[in-house]
């Protein structure tokens, strides 16, 4: 069985976090040496030392790509295009994985061949400590940092729509429409960093939620029309 996983880490001005994030990825192999990791850092228009830190501390252990189009969706798509493994995971540069994340999800996918997407649970933490209110209770982490996906999911549903907001929500909705199965594993393996520079949703950013939902509805309508045509109704 192929045990390789491509891990796509989109990074925009993440010099302060990226080292920790990548380490949390390599830690996955400590108790699961069978995993072969293809770690892809996608620099997304960083103007800080993100790339220097990655090259200095991880060198040839990771692949460093540059995606000039701004937006996490563009960076993730560049990573998906470059990924070589049959399984793809994402980790935002400011989030962290806990040990066992990939092994747990790898086992879940192995046990259920009909499932394409497996999420895990996650918690939040404040950086600096106690500065920001956090949800400390583990809850379903339906976010790219909590996902392990079969590569086919992206072959079938296509890349993420390139919006600044709601892009993953819309893609997931589309994947559901196409019948891709997903599940949420009970283990809590993601720590989401809440910090002063969390992507702020400005007015323009929020407006892209409506664009993402429109994208989804258009696709669903075309899909339904095609299905109706195919069955002769």
């Amino acid at each position, binding site marked *: 069985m192929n045990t390789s996983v491509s891990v796509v880490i989109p990074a925009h001005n993440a*010099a*302060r976090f990226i080292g920790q994030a990548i380490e949390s990825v390599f830690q996955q192999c400590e108790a699961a040496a069978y995993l072969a990791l293809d770690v892809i850092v996608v620099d997304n228009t960083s*103007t*800080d*030392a993100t790339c220097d830190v990655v090259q200095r501390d991880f060198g040839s252990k990771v692949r460093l790509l540059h995606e000039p189009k701004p937006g996490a969706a563009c960076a993730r798509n560049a990573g998906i295009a470059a990924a070589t493994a049959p399984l793809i995971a994402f980790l935002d540069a400011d989030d962290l994985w806990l040990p066992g994340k990939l092994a747990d999800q790898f086992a879940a996918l192995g046990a259920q061949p009909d499932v394409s997407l497996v999420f895990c649970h996650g918690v*939040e933490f404040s*950086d*600096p*400590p*106690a*500065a*920001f*209110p*956090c*949800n400390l209770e583990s*809850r*379903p*982490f*339906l*976010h790219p940092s909590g996902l392990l996906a079969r590569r086919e999911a992206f072959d079938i549903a296509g890349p993420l729509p390139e919006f600044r*907001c*709601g892009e*993953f*929500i819309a893609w*997931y*909705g589309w994947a*559901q429409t196409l019948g891709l199965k997903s599940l949420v594993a009970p283990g809590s393996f993601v720590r*989401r960093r*809440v*910090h*002063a520079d*969390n*992507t*702020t*949703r*400005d*007015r323009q950013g*929020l*407006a892209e*939620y*409506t*664009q993402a*939902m*429109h994208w989804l*509805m258009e696709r669903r309508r075309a899909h339904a029309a095609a299905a109706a045509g195919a069955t002769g109704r």
Partner: protein
Amino acid sequence: MIIQGRVESYRVNEPDVIHQLFDREVVVVDLRNGSYYSLSESGGTAWLAFGSAAASIDAVTELLATIYALPPDVIARDLRRFVEELTARDLIVACPQGEGVMDAATVATPAAAYSPPELRSYNDLQELFLLDPVHEVDAVAGWPHAAAGGPAVPPPAEPAGGPATTGASPAATGGDLLTAKLGGHTLLVNRDTGVYSTLEADRGTTEHHDLETLMRPWIEADRPLRRAATAQGRQLLDRLDQSFTDDAATAGGIVEQWYEIGGEAICVRTIPEQDSERLRPALRHLAIPEAPATGAGLTISAWNGGMPSAPPMLANLLQRLRRKWCTECGPRGEVLELHSSEISAIYNAGPNVLTVLDFERNRGWLLKLDDVAFPYWEVGSPFRFLLHEWFAPRGLQYVHAAAVGTARGGVLLVGKGGSGKSTTALLCAAAGLQYAGDDYCLIDPSHAWAHSLYNTGKLKGPEDYARLPELKGLSTNPDSFERGGDGKGVYFLDEIWPDRVVAGMPLRAIVVPRITGQLASYVEPCSAFEALVAMLPSTAAQLPAASNDDCDRMVALAEKLPAYLLHLGTDIRGIPAVLTTLLNG
């Protein structure tokens, strides 16, 4: 006036509900619960007609009747049903008389014959929505809040310690609008919507949305009215003071340090060895060796503690704040139980800090309800709310501004965060100019004087070393990026550049920095109104108690001084010289 049952005008429930027109389809997203909607063509037209400006049902009926060439009574019946559905979902809200309706001529000819306005609702992705923008945080104001996408704080439970007796009750106040008029122009700051607007005689109205995240319009709590303090409120203050004395006695005493701030003697009391002692160094350049004969104008007690040792009634309040501040506080953290004409109390849930000011007896308290280190912004700019509210009735204005200068006087650098004022101030200090603050000052408008508050400067990250290599490695706050933390570094310039930090300076000009991509820096005159627009909204957005009195004082200052735009070039070494030349001119 809105009379129950006779409301006829509605507007889109922004900013919680967003919408966009795609070709002929209006798509609506409710950010509170992640539901999304598609509107039929006639429904979309009605939706856009209600819009953010509001319109009456009659006006929208008439519009649809014109567009579809149908009798209004047919439309009216369908539209009422549609409006009922939208209001039931809280997508539109009733409001006073709308400002009008779109001109039928501006609406595209419908693609299809009339069908009743209709709403298709989808909620299959709610769970993902609620997880998406989990938090928006505002480190400067220190007031954390749930993002529009969903609750970051668990919904409030029933009171843990019995019902609270409130000194202030929430009340609708007809909008939280600050108004400033200068030179025939008007500046409006609406903290309920997070929008500020300029009404200029020659340019018309411009809306500004760049401070929305600071003003947090999505906090829905009603603004509490100030009432007379209750006996219970006064008793709570005594217990708060007692709690400080008790905690100090357990820990080995009280440290008293005196400062002269804005011409007033202020005594700061802390408890030795506590983290709260780190609040003092930012004021160190204003320290005076002993109590003046006149005694203290204001006494501030600052400490970590209050739990669980606090006296019973106080412990109950503190516990409620910690557990469910969202129901105990007004939209800017006003503690409802204490908020009154004689007491100001603000709770900041992020750093877990309660700030209380007793106007009558000139006592202030800053209590951090845990032992976690104070975040960098409290260490760099301590007692913001206390100093603002205590000095306001004394005619001195707390402003979000930097002040630097020469022996001839100084400039007040104004603008929102990120505009370049802090960097400019630090570059000037590095070049040998006098320094009275990089972020906040206390202004005396009647004498055009800037009193220094804090001797601190801040760097965001290693990228700032290129501009200010002198500061590298000198921050001591544990959350500094230089110490492995994720915060700004705080630098005490009274130690680094003792010859440059001053207690105050006469002001010669207000300067509005603008970052440009050009090489050279230069100044050009601008209007006093431009300076006011750069200074007032970002100041008001950071001060929970900001009022029209604050606006008046900022207007008075802007009227008194010439104003300039400072175009910041990429050759940063030239910046101090530009300001020196301006001051010498």
